[in-house]
């Protein structure tokens, strides 16, 4: 155990190209997916929290259900859509980074959307009213409210990142785990471990744990920065509690 770990650390420190390519692919795909999903998810969460329409309750339940949808099921559905015989087969996206990014968008969207919904619902209802009274357009009032719950939004986005960077099922199915092309940290760990090549697995595991640590430290920091945030529901002024994102 010690020897493979020492070897893994050495390979990481010596910038082993094979390892760092995998890390690069992982980061590229996950960050791209998050960048695509976040604006839609935040807008969706805001609209779900602020508007009332027939079927809204059903949509919220559906969103909550998507949170617990196994990533392999998303991978399977995407595989069926993108495979040569599938309805989107002509796009020839299967076993590409784009296909992996699409899968991760589907995984990240409900997380960021549900957390945004919770954050906006928990915000002081006077925020929107105050902005509108001061003459803000609906769009400006929306940005004002989102700015007031920014720490919860950061937590939502970090949670989404944590989920997509570590998911293996969808990436494996639609990416194909092709070395140097679609091999990500989690899929590489699964493959190397199955081959008995623990050094690579441990090295990538260290990176994944490092990423998780960074995300959690950032999450804790954003929640800490949100402590005393004055615009939680029904309270303002010194000592109002911070808002921690939660699933509605």
């Amino acid at each position: 155990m010690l020897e493979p770990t020492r070897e893994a650390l050495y390979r990481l420190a010596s910038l082993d190209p094979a390892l760092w390519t995998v890390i690069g692919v992982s980061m590229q795909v996950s960050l791209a997916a998050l960048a695509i999903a976040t604006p839609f998810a935040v807008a969706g969460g805001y609209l779900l929290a602020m508007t009332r329409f027939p079927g809204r309750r059903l949509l919220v339940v559906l969103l909550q259900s998507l949170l617990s949808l196994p990533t392999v099921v998303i991978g399977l559905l995407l595989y069926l859509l993108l495979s040569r015989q599938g309805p989107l087969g002509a796009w020839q996206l299967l076993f590409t980074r784009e296909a992996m990014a699409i899968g991760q968008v589907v995984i990240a969207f409900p997380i960021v959307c549900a957390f945004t919904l919770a954050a906006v619902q928990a915000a002081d209802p006077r925020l929107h009213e105050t902005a509108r009274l001061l003459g803000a357009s609906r769009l400006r009032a929306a940005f004002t409210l989102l700015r007031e719950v920014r720490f919860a939004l950061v937590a939502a986005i970090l949670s989404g990142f944590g989920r997509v960077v570590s998911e293996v099922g969808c990436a494996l199915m639609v990416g194909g785990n092709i070395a140097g092309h679609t091999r990500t940290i989690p899929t590489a760990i699964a493959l190397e471990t199955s081959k008995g090549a623990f050094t690579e697995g441990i090295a990538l595991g260290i990176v994944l744990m490092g990423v998780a640590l960074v995300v959690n430290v950032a999450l804790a920091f954003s929640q800490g920065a949100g402590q005393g945030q004055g615009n939680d529901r029904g309270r303002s002024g010194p000592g109002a509690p911070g808002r921690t994102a939660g699933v509605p």
Partner: protein
Amino acid sequence: MTRPPLLCAYGLCLRFGARGVLDDCSLAIAAGEACVLTGDNGAGKTTLLRVLAGLQRPDAGTLLFDGQPVEAGRFPPSVRRALQFVPAHPLLFSTSVQANIDYGLRARGIGRAECRRLAQAAIEWARLQPVAATDPRRLSAGETQRTAIARAWVLAPRLLLFDEPTANLDRESHAQVLDLVGRLVRDGAAVLIAAHDRALAELPGARRLHLSGGRLATLGA
């Protein structure tokens, strides 16, 4: 000469479930007129102000602004710009006092330099210079109230609605807020102030309205 009415309300009725809050309330506020609205706790003063500010739809009744009918909750931009409502517990955005004050100016598309100049004037008017750059979470209740009043004042509204502006303030903050409201009235702003506070209820030159059992009565200036 009689001043033309700025805001008129006729036959406002509102019920919350089985409880009637407003029952055929009518009033008119002229440009530059100061009115004080008194009433017991739960009499419906805040509700009436929210109806007049367009934040609450009445079950029945008509609102006219400058003689034009307006629908509560759907005030046209010109009316929304002409009215400001300062609630009893105003909410400040978690930016700075100055940013709060120039928020409405920026929302109106006023240039950055002009915003800064007007906000600075409002800060001086409300004597908020020592806390201008402060995070609103660190303000006292009195400073919060003065910031909210300055934030409304800077927009030069034609009618200001105040809900208990001196509620829960210590003696010094109370005097400062009272001074601001008094200066507004002396400067000829049209104001309607819901108040329990005796000092506000007996504001010199203000017409006194009393809300009781959902009915509005004029008590005289």
